[in-house]
């Protein structure tokens, strides 16, 4: 005992207190004095003595009352109390004191030796009691602290002890379980459970266990026998555990294992477990089916048996890598041999299976990707085929955006068509909507696409990269959801040019045919005309001849009359003059007629155009109201013509011009050089400022017998044309009403003799 035992000595007589204290102090105790009841209670509270020697006769409250109060106070109840009295020494009083909870009673007088002995005895007893009390509490606490339910029974199933856990298991307060039969509590039954291990324990005197279900919980009970000194069964200890959770975990594990087993066995993937030496420990159904082997044939054999020879090295190396600690998940492809000897391509995942940090197995999950590989290869080949087709196509293939014609996809041919060396560059920068040569073409094309869904052989002109222009012909389809147009295009520039050329040639041919037809018609008409004119010529010849004779007679007659009647009256002379003039006019008409009808021979000589014009103007001088404008350059080559005939022509033209300007005007005679396809010509143009020629008359001007004049039979221009043509030239006319007329004679030139 670490502390000194403390004793409170209470007596109303200070001498007794003092003597007692001396005795006790001497015996080794620590003492405190008190002389009244209240003092005692107060000192007990303050000093917490182990023992109080309490006198009954106290001045304030008596010792019994003090004892009662001490025992009633929980903090003080544990203090030992010995009532010491000289007055109340009878048995009655002693009983009363003990009833009040006093621990002992000492009657005075008492010897010092007896007192000390009594005190010592009481203190020893109390210490023993204390120890026992503590031990029991400790045992109970331990008993209750055990998680398993513990029930002690006697040999007749009576519960003689149970802990808190047992109470909790069965939903009872442990105290209420005491004395009841165990099966009443454990199995809620009126008689022992049929499988109760206790009977076996009783018979065989050794441990038995049982698992049973109670109220949805799984309980495991272990029963041990308690044997008496003679080895007879005296009772039993039940240790009961709630194993519901363990049971559930086991069940879950079992279900989980079943699930995984099912998974492993039903998956089409091959699953293999092998040990670190590569010996197969597990192969699932898919694996067996793949190899065509049985589990017995495979288990324990090296993994190599599956692998195509050329891959075995790789597998070995991977195993070595793993052995060096490069663990983790591997993903690779190998070829394996199927049961039919066919090589199958497998996609493999392998992972280490570790137990307590040590890799013990390798898990392999492999999938037959032969079909996928083959499909991929087919797709790759197909893609390559199409890519080759696409890029090597000799037509342009395109995909453009509907909105603006941006090139989204193109083959090489299309890029080349648009003048790009690089297809990528073409796709990056070309926007068709900005490159249509003809505005509105794209809009028209898109309208057609939207209406019909496609366009066929649409033709449009585009700018190439270098801004040159080409014709494209394309057939396209619209994909509104995707927002693009796809199609095929070809460069038809040459085709178009050829077509244009053909068209041009056709047109030219037609024109030539028309021209030739016209020429033939003209020739025919000419023939007809000439035939007609030949007839006319003969007729005119004879008529002219016949007319000339009477005219000659009239002419003679007039001449004669004028000779014989020199003194005739004014009127007679006037009439003779009229006769003379009209005879001349008639003679002129006959002359023209005969000129026209007669085929004259052309007597050519070299002569300047200016000389011819001069001669004509000498013969037919301009009237006073007509101004002459001459432009006859001296350097022109000489003409090679019959001068008389061309004079006659020019005379006709000039006289006609005078007559076209009765009110006066200007006559221009202009000569210049003129070359057609290296042939040299000289033109002489005679222009007047007269009334001009109505369009409807232009075509008939040169026809014989066409005239707008009151006089004349309309042979002048016809004769002129004939003469010019006889000289190898031609005559043309230009006129607009009110703007005058211009007759141009185009004549051959004399070949230079010097050369």
């Amino acid at each position, binding site marked *: 005992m670490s502390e000194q035992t403390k004793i409170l000595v209470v007596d109303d007589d200070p001498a007794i207190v003092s003597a007692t204290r001396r005795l006790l102090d001497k015996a080794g105790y620590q003492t405190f004095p008190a002389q009244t009841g209240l003092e005692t209670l107060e000192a007990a509270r303050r000093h917490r003595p182990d023992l109080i020697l309490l006198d009954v006769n106290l001045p304030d409250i008596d010792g019994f009352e003090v004892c009662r109060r001490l025992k009633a106070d929980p903090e003080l109840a544990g203090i030992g109390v010995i009532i010491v009295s000289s007055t109340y020494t009878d048995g009655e009083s002693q009983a009363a004191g003990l009833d009040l909870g006093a621990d002992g009673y000492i009657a005075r007088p008492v010897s010092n030796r007896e007192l000390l002995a009594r005190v010592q005895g009481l203190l020893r007893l109390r210490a023993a009691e204390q120890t026992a009390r503590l031990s029991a509490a400790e045992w109970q606490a331990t008993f209750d602290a055990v998680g398993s339910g513990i029930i002690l029974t006697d040999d007749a199933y009576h519960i003689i002890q149970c802990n808190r856990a047992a109470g909790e298991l069965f939903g009872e307060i442990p105290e209420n379980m005491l004395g009841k039969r165990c099966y009443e509590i454990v199995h809620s039954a009126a008689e022992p459970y049929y499988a109760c291990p206790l009977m076996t324990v009783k018979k065989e005197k050794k441990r038995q266990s049982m698992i049973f279900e109670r109220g949805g919980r799984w309980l495991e009970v272990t029963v041990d026998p308690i044997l008496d000194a003679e080895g007879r069964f005296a009772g039993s200890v039940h240790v009961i555990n709630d194993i519901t959770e363990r049971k559930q975990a086991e069940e879950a594990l079992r279900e989980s294992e079943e699930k995984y087993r099912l998974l492993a066995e039903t998956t089409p993937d091959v699953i293999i477990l092998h040990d670190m030496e590569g010996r197969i420990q597990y192969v699932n159904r898919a694996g067996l089916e793949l190899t065509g082997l049985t589990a017995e044939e495979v288990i324990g054999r090296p993994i190599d048996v599956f692998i195509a020879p050329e891959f075995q090295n790789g597998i070995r190396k991977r195993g070595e890598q793993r052995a060096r600690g490069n663990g983790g998940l591997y993903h690779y492809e190998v070829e394996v041999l199927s049961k039919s000897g066919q090589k199958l391509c497998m996609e493999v995942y392998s992972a280490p299976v570790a137990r307590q940090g040590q890799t013990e197995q390798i898990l392999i999950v492999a999938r037959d990707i032969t079909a996928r590989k083959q499909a991929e290869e087919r797709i790759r080949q197909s893609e390559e085929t199409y890519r080759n087709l696409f890029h090597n196509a000799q037509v342009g293939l395109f995909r453009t955006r509907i909105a603006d014609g941006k090139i989204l996809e193109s083959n090489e041919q299309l890029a080349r068509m648009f003048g790009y060396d690089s297809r990528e560059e073409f796709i990056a920068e070309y926007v068709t909507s900005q490159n249509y040569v003809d505005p509105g073409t794209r809009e028209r094309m898109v309208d057609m696409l939207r209406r019909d869904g496609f366009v066929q052989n649409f033709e449009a002109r585009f700018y190439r990269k270098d801004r040159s222009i080409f014709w494209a012909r394309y057939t396209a389809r619209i994909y509104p959801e995707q927002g693009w147009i796809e199609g095929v295009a070809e460069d038809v520039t040459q085709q178009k040019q050829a077509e244009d050329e053909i068209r041009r040639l056709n047109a030219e041919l037609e024109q030539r045919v028309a021209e030739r037809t016209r020429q033939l018609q003209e020739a025919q008409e000419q023939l007809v005309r000439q035939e007609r004119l030949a007839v006319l010529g003969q007729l005119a*010849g004879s008529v*002219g*001849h*016949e007319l*000339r*004779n009477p*005219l*000659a*007679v*009239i*002419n*003679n*007659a007039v*001449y*004669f009359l004028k*000779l*014989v009647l020199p003194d005739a009256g004014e009127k007679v002379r006037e009439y003779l003059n009229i006769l003379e003039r009209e*005879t001349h006019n008639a*003679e002129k008409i006959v*002359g023209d007629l*005969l*000129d026209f009808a*007669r085929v*004259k021979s052309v007597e050519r000589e070299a002569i300047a155009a200016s000389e011819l014009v001069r001669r004509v103007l000498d013969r037919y001088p301009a009237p006073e109201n007509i101004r002459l404008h001459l432009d006859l350059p001296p350097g022109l080559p000489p003409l090679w013509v019959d001068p008389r005939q061309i004079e006659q022509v020019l005379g006709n033209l000039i006289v006609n011009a005078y007559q076209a300007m009765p009110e006066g005007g200007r006559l221009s005679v202009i000569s210049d050089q003129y070359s057609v396809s290296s042939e040299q010509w000289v033109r002489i143009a005679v222009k007047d400022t007269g009334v001009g020629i109505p369009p409807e008359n232009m075509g008939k001007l040169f026809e014989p017998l066409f005239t707008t004049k009151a006089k004349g039979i309309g042979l002048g221009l016809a004769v002129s044309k004939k003469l010019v043509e006889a000289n190898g030239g031609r005559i043309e006319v230009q006129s607009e009403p009110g703007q005058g007329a211009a007759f141009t004679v185009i004549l051959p030139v004399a070949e230079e003799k010097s050369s």
Partner: protein
Amino acid sequence: MSQPTRILIVDDNPAMAQTTADILALKGYEVRVSGSSREALDLLGREKIHILLTDVIMPEMNGVDLFVRARKQQPSLITFLMTAYSADELIQRGRKEGAKAILTKPLDLNLLLMLIKAVEESYLWKLR
């Protein structure tokens, strides 16, 4: 006294022959007239003619043949041809045979008189 120039006019058109003859007679020439070549040749056989003025185109015998035959009878005969045509082979032949002038009808009478005068001056005086 000088002999007047005698001119034979041959034309199948009597009016033509008559009027021409009248004009020349009026101008003081001695004029004979024939309506055909045959008649003219008869006359030429009988009488001296200085100038023959003959139409070319005539029935039976044309003026050029007449001129050629007449010249055999009277080699000094001066011949003027008259024609209603400007040019044809007959005229060309006449020109080659020595016709002194070719006159187109209707006659330019002033020109005719001028020619006669020129012929008189150039040839006739020597021949007479």
